[in-house]
């Protein structure tokens, strides 16, 4: 599903590479944590998988597509198969929960009729049934992140990327979001999550890839934060 083959990424003006000869292979349906201290390069992995940055060396393959050599005009279509959740939610403040999710559908050409059918369903799935018409500022942090998850999942992507999705949430709310991601994972969606939340990693007991100074120092099938 996802392959990084000897990937090196050095940002311009950086003294050392963010990722240094990293190789990881992730199978369909896996749930993988990338952990490590700030600046270890774990967020760069998300950017590589989203085709936001290109590696200097090595190959990145996502969904069987070689992202390394992908032309930028193919990027939009490629991204439709990937859902993405961030620490800061990235919701549109002037749109309701329903409209935020529907927006993501409409801008990729789905009709309003499709949105009317699919959006309530996915909002129900993330546990926001009855709060469809609230604006982000009327929702708690955890609820806002649920909207973001709904938006990421509404297209039924093959892969869900989560960049510190619990970074802005209290421990209890974080656990709820993790349960949600776990449920999404059980539908067959591959989940890749970048985090430094040790609590969560320890509770989930999933595959853990630890990165330090751009190198993989640990790759455990049922790991803890360590």
């Amino acid at each position, binding site marked *: 599903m996802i392959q990084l083959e000897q990937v090196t990424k050095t940002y311009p003006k950086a003294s050392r590479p963010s990722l240094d000869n990293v190789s990881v292979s992730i199978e369909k349906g896996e749930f993988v944590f990338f952990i490590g201290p700030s600046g270890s390069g774990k967020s760069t992995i998300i950017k590589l998988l989203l085709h936001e940055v290109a590696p200097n060396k090595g190959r990145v393959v996502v969904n069987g597509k070689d992202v390394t050599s992908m032309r930028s005009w193919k*990027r939009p*279509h490629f991204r439709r198969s990937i859902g993405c959740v961030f620490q800061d939610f990235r919701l549109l403040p002037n749109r309701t929960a329903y409209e935020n999710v529907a927006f993501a559908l409409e*801008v990729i050409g789905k009709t309003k009729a499709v949105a009317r059918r699919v959006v309530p369903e996915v909002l129900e799935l993330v546990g926001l049934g009855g709060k469809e018409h609230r604006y982000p500022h009327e929702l708690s942090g955890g609820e806002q992140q649920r909207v973001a998850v709904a938006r990421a999942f509404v297209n039924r992507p093959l892969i869900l990327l989560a960049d510190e999705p619990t970074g802005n949430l209290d421990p209890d709310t974080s656990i709820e979001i993790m349960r949600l991601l776990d449920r999404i994972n059980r539908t067959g969606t591959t989940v890749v999550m970048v985090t430094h939340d040790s609590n969560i990693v320890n509770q989930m007991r999933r595959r853990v890839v630890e990165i330090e100074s751009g190198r993989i120092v640990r790759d455990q099938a049922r790991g803890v934060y360590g």
Partner: protein
Amino acid sequence: MRMKYVLSEVLVGLWRNVTMSIAMIITMAVSLFMLGGGGLLYQKVGDMKDLYYENVEVSIFLKTDVTAEQRTDLDTKLHSDALVKEVTYVDKEEAYKRFQKMYADAPDLVNAVKPDQLPESFRLKLNNPEQYKDIYDQYKDSEGVEEIVDQSKLLDKVFGVLTGVQNFALAIAVWMAIAALLLVANTIQVAAYSKRREVAVMKLVGASNWFIQAPFVLEAVVAGLIGSILSMVAMVALKMVAARGSLAALEGLITPVSWSDIFLTFPLMAGVGGLISAATAWVTLRFYLRV
């Protein structure tokens, strides 16, 4: 649905920044008006040059005491001259007729002049009216020649003024176009900034590039088209004022500007206005949105 979305985004975009939109439209309108006016003038000057130079004559006036021999000599030389297309000899009687016709409004003057007092002349049509100088140099010292007069000298002055006006209009059009261009770029940046969250989400979920850019580009194009319509209205108004009288005197001198001439400049103005706006918006977005 998508078309409806894009169009409503365009209107919202123009309205959100309405003062800037108006500035953009006015600048565009003035620029296009100058461009259209300059273009029209260019076309008219071209027409007029064809018309006037076609009929332009070089006149070689002979001395009153010219001998028949000198005259025949000159006649032979002119007929064999490669620069000359046509030679007409105008004798005193013929000159008098022309004089009568030219000054028909002033019978006193006509009565005071006798055919004898008017000089004979050769009227030449040149193959190329601009080679007047060669003719002048060649014949000015010939025996029996009093004076060589070229009508194109006067025309050159008239056309010099018209070309000046035309260049002035085009220069203003260019400067205004630059101002319009910067305003478009600025408007697009403001619009892109105010929609940065939407754009970020659209990029994230994989909206196509054209879909992200279309509302911004169309916003600029709509402004450009409104500008071109305004400049069209200004032209029509000018034509109506001109026909009404204050500028009617000029109509005799300048070949008349017809309605079809004016309406034909509209596609030019709309095209230029729309294209410039679209290109500017697109380039601005490439730098600003990196899509």
